[in-house]
């Protein structure tokens, strides 16, 4: 549990020496409780206090970081069961599975395509996070060759899957200096797996079919000094998986340490991509730290990456863009002016259409507190007054010589009022949906 400022104060020297930059130890404690400063800023804390404070500051779900040759992915540090209670922090890593029994050239092709994949969503470049290589062959040399084949095409973080520590070790030989995840330790191999993980600086997934099994193994691994753990609830079916993942999250948030680790979910081997996609969607919504998929197709990866962004968006802050005049395709003073709001999804649906069609335009983005056109209109944040204010504030009149402004079709009712607010400007009502903008611009505005 997090400590209050007063509780922290009791563990500080209480000399008010000011070396931390604060006038009193109490002031420093308050900042520490609010996580605005580091404990190390006070040179005089005792070792004992340090341990106590570190323990209390430890998050209920351990942060686990996987590192590849380039790129890293983190899971853990979550603090709530429902996103509206605060927010979900670390988007689950999405990994694509390959089997070492596949032809190495085929492996390279698959990983090449998936690792160079990127898709634009409201101005963010979305990508997958890495690959999971399964030692299906059971042979060290074959596995090592598969790891090499993957590494030949991508430096993204890796997950190595297999039961036999010796086979995994051959794969790990190829990943000098990285921190992959190995999957995983179970009832019979956990001791050797623990040694392997510690030796190679890898994180270790713990496989178990029940809370008891998982907690039991975690405790044994902790005793061996292995801390970078990931829970792998190995169960069949969406309902059992949902129940177990929910129970793990609940217990972790109650500071039950043996289950205070991120989880991994496998949306693989279902023999049906349609089903795999929904297993993965459930994992994204319900608590997974890492999600492994066995197929890579853009038509599925794109919506999956978007779902992940949406669920992990901060509920208090809609994703928004800066209010301003955006110049699309180098507009000249004679080019048209369009108005919209600063909600990212809104801005990008409009900007992408015009940009994609190669049409130059001035896009006036008003400060609507990150709300969509209709939401902002209903909330009184996108009205004649705010639009007029933006037009004046951004000095639109100095940039264009055609005094015509196009407003969104959904807010046609604003046109009269806006003409009153902006004397000398002609207000035109555009189409309702952004998709129809290029057509409208080519016909009506020319």
């Amino acid at each position, binding site marked *: 549990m997090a400590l209050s400022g007063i509780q922290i104060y009791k563990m500080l020297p209480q000399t008010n020496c000011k070396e931390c930059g604060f006038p009193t130890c109490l002031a420093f404690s308050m900042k520490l409780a609010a996580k605005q400063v580091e404990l190390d800023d006070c040179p005089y804390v005792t070792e004992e206090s340090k341990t106590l404070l570190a323990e209390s500051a430890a998050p209920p779900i351990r942060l686990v970081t996987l590192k590849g040759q380039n790129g890293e992915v983190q899971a853990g540090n979550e603090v709530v069961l429902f*996103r509206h209670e605060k927010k979900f922090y670390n988007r689950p890593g999405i990994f694509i599975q390959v089997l070492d029994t596949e032809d190495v050239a085929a492996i390279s092709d698959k990983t090449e395509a998936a690792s160079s994949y990127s898709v*634009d969503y409201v101005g963010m470049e979305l990508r997958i996070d890495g690959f999971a290589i399964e030692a299906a062959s059971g042979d060290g040399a074959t596995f090592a060759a598969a790891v090499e084949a993957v590494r030949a095409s991508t430096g993204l973080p890796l997950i190595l899957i297999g039961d036999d520590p010796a086979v995994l070790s051959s794969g790990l030989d190829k990943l000098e200096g990285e921190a992959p995840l190995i999957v995983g330790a179970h009832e019979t191999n956990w001791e050797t797996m623990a040694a392997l993980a510690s030796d190679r600086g890898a994180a270790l997934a713990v496989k178990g079919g029940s809370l008891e099994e998982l*907690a039991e193994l975690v405790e044994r691994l902790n005793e061996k000094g292995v801390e970078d753990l990931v829970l792998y609830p190995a169960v069949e079916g969406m*309902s059992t998986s*949902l129940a177990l993942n929910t129970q793990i999250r609940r217990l972790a948030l109650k500071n039950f340490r043996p289950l205070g680790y991120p989880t991994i979910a496998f949306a693989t081997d279902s023999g049906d991509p349609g089903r795999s996609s929904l297993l993965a969607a*459930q994992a994204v*919504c319900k608590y997974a730290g890492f999600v492994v998929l066995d197929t890579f197709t853009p038509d599925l990866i794109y919506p999956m990456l978007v779902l992940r962004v949406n669920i992990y968006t901060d509920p208090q802050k809609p994703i928004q863009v800066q209010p301003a005049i955006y110049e699309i395709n180098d507009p000249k003073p004679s080019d048209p002016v369009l108005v919209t709001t600063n909600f990212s999804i809104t801005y990008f649906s409009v900007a992408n259409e015009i940009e994609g069609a190669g049409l130059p335009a001035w896009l006036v983005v008003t400060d609507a507190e990150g709300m969509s056109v209709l939401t902002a209109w209903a909330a009184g944040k996108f009205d004649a007054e705010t639009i007029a204010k933006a037009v004046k504030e951004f000095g639109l009149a100095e940039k264009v010589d055609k005094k015509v402004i196009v407003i969104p079709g959904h807010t046609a009712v604003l046109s009269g009022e806006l003409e009153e607010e902006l004397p000398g400007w002609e207000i035109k009502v555009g189409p309702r949906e952004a998709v129809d903008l290029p057509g409208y611009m080519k016909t009506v505005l020319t």
Partner: protein
Amino acid sequence: MPVEIPKDSWPGAVSTVTLGATSDEGGSRSSTVTIGGEQSLPFMHFEHPTPNRPVIAMEIAPTRPSDWSAVLLEAWGSTADDPAVWAEACEEAGADLILLQFGLKGTGDDPITADFAVSAVKTVLGASGLPLVVLGPGQIEIDNSILVPIADATKGERIVLGRCEDGNYRTIVASAMANDHLVLGRTPMDVNLAKQLNILMTDMGLPLDRIVMDPTTGALGYGIEYGYSVMERLRLAALQGDAMTQLPMLVNPGFETWKTKESKVGEGTPDAWGDWAERGVNWETLTAVSLIEAGADVVVLRHLESLKRVGAAIGELMVLETV
């Protein structure tokens, strides 16, 4: 190592609502559909087995829709030309409910009329034995002008009529009450507005077991996170015992996703978007399943492949877990 399973026990429960009526019950449906009744968060069977599974309503229109994605129109082919054939096809494919959505037009380019609407509803009732949801185009006068005669002409069928919104619920609620129907209330993604509307509707004397609520959602990529969280909050409030939130929830991923650019546009889109038809289905199924995880009792879909996939997922979610 013994671990105590963390179980929540809730004072409240979602009301149980039965859609449709068989001939014994005063209607003509071959079977009825019961939703709601939850006493735990979605699929936490270990706390309280989920009494009724979420169901799927397939959306159809009285005439071939002109604004649907080409992917859908191609998949349905000529089936979408005739609401009777369409409803039958949905039933055969495993739909639980038929949702008949009216637009502003009736025959050809003429504005919709009460006669047109009543006859379309009767056609659908005649073609399929499934319970029905009937929605007007969403403009107050037109909605009232068709929903009232529909309610009168189908007395006893326990059709879900909608949508009731804060500006227009009296007429619809009154005619549902007079004719043994149900209503669908819709509010724009807000817990308090949802409660408010439910209070207004129950104040008129409509019992809770005849109301379904649509808290509104956005599609994946277009605001799903707002809908998702509002649904989670409504369900939590219901379980905590807030009576005016204890209604089953209906959401419409079909409508929301198939109007997005991803599902509607197939040409000139980035390569990273992949295959158009498959993308559209994924957009719909991912949205639907996420909302089912958040507490949806009814999801409205448009594509048959989505019906199949989401139906299978619901089946899996209803299996009593084995831990």
